[in-house]
């Protein structure tokens, strides 16, 4: 039993790595490899499923694709990511509004043009121009790059720290657990945005500082979730078995315990990216994040506030970009949560 479970965890992990490397449906190449791990046959499903043992990750992926909202959000995120990565590559390098080297992104997002200030959306400037004549369409696209990378990097740092703290606290326990978790409680007693701007006061302005501030703010959340998940996993037989076979503590944590918390972590991280995008925008809006003229959605809103009634387009498009990307990550997170939960799966 314990051996079987252990094998399964190993397979789940390699499966996970596989999934990240290639498109998940392809990993379904031979589901029969998994036969020994399927202890019970799925007889409740339709006949095609009845004989086949389930591969957790394939099942999950299938269930995710069956969820329309999640699929749409997945495509939306893919679209935003592609735009953020590739379109700025075609950005005109020279400070000119009429480049020959670019057909996709016609304007440099940080170049001002005093002869075209505050133009409403038109054929040349799809989203209009701001008070310095900068093209808002180009700036929204350039902002996608900032917001996405800040979101992903901040969540990655927060995850690394939070998972470590949570795993150590949950697995080792004792006074270390008490100290670490009390510290996390204290951080959670201050609203995240207030903590973030207090950290910004310490670190100074700038996007790199914003990443650090936002990631630190999110550490307690991950630490708590990982800790509570681990506490429930810790008592399982396979952990006792691993301990008996003489595995070291760190091996048990990283090889046996953490893979089982993976689904919870993936869901939280996806939702965390949307939170990080919102917080980045908030810091930018308050003038503490990205500094002008660099384009960032929140900073664009903060900057354009004075033109709320004269030039609404300066505020509508960056705000829409924030809302859409946050919405996409929220939907994907919800979809993943359902997909990971066998009981809630869409069939």
């Amino acid at each position, binding site marked *: 039993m314990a051996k079987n479970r252990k094998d399964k965890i190993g397979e789940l992990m390699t499966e996970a790595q596989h999934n990240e490397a290639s498109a998940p449906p392809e990993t379904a190449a031979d589901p029969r490899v998994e036969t020994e791990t399927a202890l019970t046959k799925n007889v409740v499903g339709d006949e095609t499923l009845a004989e086949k043992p389930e591969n957790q990750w394939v099942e999950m992926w299938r269930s995710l694709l069956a969820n329309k909202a999640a699929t749409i959000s997945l495509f939306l995120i893919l679209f935003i990511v592609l735009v953020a990565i590739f379109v700025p590559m075609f950005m005109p390098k020279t400070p000119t509004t009429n480049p020959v080297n670019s057909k996709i992104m016609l304007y440099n997002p940080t170049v001002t043009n005093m002869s075209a200030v505050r133009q409403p959306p038109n054929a040349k400037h799809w989203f209009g121009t701001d008070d310095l004549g900068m093209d808002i369409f180009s700036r929204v696209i350039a902002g996608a790059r900032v917001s996405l990378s800040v979101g992903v990097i901040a969540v990655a740092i927060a995850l690394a720290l939070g998972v470590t703290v949570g795993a150590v606290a949950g697995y080792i326990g004792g006074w270390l657990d008490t100290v670490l978790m009390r510290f996390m*409680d*204290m951080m959670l*007693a*201050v609203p995240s*945005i207030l903590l973030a701007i*207090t950290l910004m*006061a310490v670190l100074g302005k700038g996007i790199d500082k914003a990443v650090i501030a936002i990631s630190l703010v999110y550490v307690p959340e991950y630490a708590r979730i990982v800790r509570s998940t681990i506490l429930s996993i810790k008592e399982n037989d396979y952990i006792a078995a691993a301990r008996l076979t003489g595995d070291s503590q760190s091996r048990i944590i990283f090889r046996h315990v953490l893979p089982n918390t993976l689904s919870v972590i993936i869901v939280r991280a996806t939702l965390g990216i949307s939170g990080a995008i*919102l917080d980045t925008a908030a810091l930018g809006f308050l003038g503490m994040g990205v500094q002008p003229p660099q384009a960032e959605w929140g900073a664009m809103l903060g900057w354009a506030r004075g033109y709320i009634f004269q030039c609404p387009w300066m505020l*509508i498009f960056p705000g829409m970009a924030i*809302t859409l990307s946050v919405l996409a990550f929220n939907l994907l997170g919800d979809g993943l949560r359902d997909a990971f939960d066998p009981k809630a799966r869409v069939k």
Partner: protein
Amino acid sequence: MVIPVLIGVSIIVFCLLRVFAPDPAPIVLGEHATAASMKAWRDSQGLNKPVVTQYVNYMKGVFHGDLGYSYYTNTKVTDEIMARFPATIELAITAIIFASIFGIILGVIAAVKKNSIFDAASTLIALVGVSIPIFWLGILLMMIFCGPSTHIFPAGGRITPLMDPTHITGLYTLDSLFTGNWAAFKDAVWHLVLPSFTLGMYSMAIITRITRSTMLDSLNQDYVRTARAKGIREVMVVMKHALRNSMIPVTTVIGLQFGALLGGALLTESVFSWPGIGKFTVDCILKSDFPIVQGIVLLIAAIFVLVNLAADIAYAFLDPRIRYTSKKEE
């Protein structure tokens, strides 16, 4: 638990702002301050003493209700905060009331009419509510309702100048009611509508979600089936049997949301030029007025911890199983 957490918060904030933050002297005194004048200023503020001594002195003050003095105006931090705090509290309370009422209503409707158009609509509202940046929502509402052409609601501030009611509680709506100043009351409420809607939107979305899922849960319970079997009217089944039992998780979430609201107030106040502590905090951080920032963070943490404590206590009142007397109907 309350006191240790607050002392911990005070240590963290103190360390951040006094040890790790850049020296406030050049910012407070201006670029042209000499080294001697900066040293004199630091001495006068006690910033040259060892950090531990500084902290002990600070905490001695805190326990006596003294949070220090502003670097700029030299007024008491408590006075500076109290001058603005009622505005924030008024906004936050209105927002949480709005969020709770509409959140619970939407959640109940979504659960009772599961998979209907109402369910879809309330899910959509909840989804947009958690995704829309609070400051952009504020800006949009302003654009729609406060423009020169529409002008349905005022574009900012707490009250029309010169209409302020006599200060009793500092909450303009209450003050104007107490003094019977109806014009001021109407004006204050009018100013509250958009900011509290903006601030409450996120919490409303969260409350809708939790209400829907806990209601779905309790509607499937045996006692609900029993109640229906006994022929109790559906409204009573939903309101009394299902909703009452769903209120416990909902109350926890409302408690947690009140803390989050105080953070959101920071952004809402900035958008609507609301003269509360949120906007003030941002200003003080930008000009390194650290004693005030410390005071505000401590105050908000205290409220957050106390509200959660209150939510814990509220369980006893909400959990029908804890009641032994006055059983009606059943």
